């Protein structure tokens, strides 16, 4: 096939924020209508969407995303692991599903709780695994962002729930040696692409661990949204692997989840 005749990739942003945040990119959506415009402008057909409030106030995120309504948008609900909260993780998940949540996120840097030791998160993960509903672990503290994921701890967590799709995000995953170790030891671990800035890592990760490990995002709220399409479509991998990263992987995860 002539390279000029290859159809453009279909992109889904699996982690699109709405709202203000420190050090945001100029175009980062401030409200829901901004988000839809950004999706159009940057060739994103669908998105999993959250409020930036989710990074420090999960309850408010869940109120805000309930107001987002478009067939192109899937809601991410956020979970608070605080032990003293009376609503059980099971009750929380029921409520999230009643409100059409398609993925649950938690921020382990809110602050310094451990995914492998949090009583509530472990219980939630058990419930999510039963339904194969994806868990997004978005690591963000307002004053740090690079290499904040403890990949060896992530291995242990993923191995406790081997059929749970665990998707990680941080501003920048620069240290690749522990990342390689984690991917080699946890088959259910997946990465949001915009955390990976290094040259030719899409090819490297696809060859070593399979393209199914990478999930596209525009990189907002912090990174220029025109940057990450090229990591996929210039990568020296097959066209089918490119399409998997651009949208196929997240579509499959969502299609395998049992939301009823």
């Amino acid at each position: 096939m002539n390279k000029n005749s290859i159809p453009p990739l279909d992109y889904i942003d699996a982690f699109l924020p709405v709202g203000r945040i420190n050090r945001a990119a100029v175009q980062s959506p401030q409200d829901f209508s901004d988000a839809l415009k950004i999706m159009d402008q940057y060739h994103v057909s669908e998105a999993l969407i959250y409020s930036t409030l989710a990074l420090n106030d999960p309850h408010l995120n869940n109120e805000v995303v309930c107001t987002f309504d478009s067939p192109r948008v899937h809601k991410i609900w956020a979970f608070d692991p605080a032990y003293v909260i009376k609503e059980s993780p099971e009750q929380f998940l029921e409520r999230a599903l009643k409100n059409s949540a398609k993925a649950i996120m938690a921020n382990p840097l809110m602050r310094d709780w451990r995914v492998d030791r949090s009583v509530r998160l472990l219980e939630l993960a058990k419930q999510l695994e039963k339904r194969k509903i994806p868990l997004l672990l978005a690591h963000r503290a307002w004053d740090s962002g690079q290499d904040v994921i403890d990949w060896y701890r992530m291995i242990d967590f993923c191995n406790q729930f081997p059929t749970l799709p665990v998707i990680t995000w941080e501003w920048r995953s620069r240290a690749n040696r522990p990342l390689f170790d984690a991917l080699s030891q946890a088959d259910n671990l997946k990465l949001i692409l915009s955390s990976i800035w290094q040259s030719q890592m899409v090819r490297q990760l696809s060859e070593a661990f399979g393209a199914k490990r990478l999930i596209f995002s525009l990189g907002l709220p912090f990174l220029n949204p025109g940057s990450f399409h090229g990591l996929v479509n210039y990568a020296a991998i097959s066209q089918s692997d490119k399409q998997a990263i651009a949208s196929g992987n997240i579509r499959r995860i969502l299609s395998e989840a049992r939301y009823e």
Partner: protein
Amino acid sequence: MNNPKSEIARRFLAGLPLDHIPVIDFHTHMGRSSEYYYIPFNTADCVTAYLNSFGIDHIVTFCINVTTDVAPKNKFVYDLHKNNPERLSPLTAIHAGFPQDWISILDQGYQAGSRGIKILHQYQGVEEDVDFSSALDYARDKNWVALAHNWGTPDRLEHWARNFPTVYFIIGHAATMYKHLVDKYDNVYQCTCASFVEGYFSPIKDMVNCMPVEKIIHGSDALDLDIATSIGPIAFADISEEAREKILGRNAIQLAKRLQRPLPLLRNY
């Protein structure tokens, strides 16, 4: 969805090489490993294929991770240049903590075909007030550039630019804080490197709005950062196609001509 009007954006979205225009990358690193990471596909053949996929004609490059001995790291880059001078021009990295080494290191670079000096003192455990005069004095009659990760305060960069008018100073990462110097001094240029990290570096449009577009040159930071992260923000920036073409390559070609050392290109454009 919006279809891009820009041919550069159209090609970028399709993953096609920008082989309709000259593309120069003025900020790249070569090496096998750094403290941060293992570097995938670092051989000459892999790098050439990687450049070809984007349609990059030529790169200006230097070693990665200059926290230890720079000489063997520089040699890795010189060897790449020796085997493929059409595609790579080297700069010579110095370690700011060891000024006693600078002249011999720069001499080795000169013999190996270096085009200038790479400064990265923020990673080298030294104070901001390093006196680079002896290194810049070495460079002054060689048509060299000096590219720094961060020049520090505008006053410091102005001091160097004024006192070494035959050395061409490249501001290594996307910024607007030196805009008055880019405007005032013929020998000060602004690189776009890492502009996609908007909370820390300046977006493309901000730079175009506040300094002469002819002084802005493209840089990616590959093999640290993926080349897509440098081309994408230029491709999608709300600027003219002519400005995109200048930034991506034509400005660097003009700079090389001013240095009387033209950059080889893959074709006639």
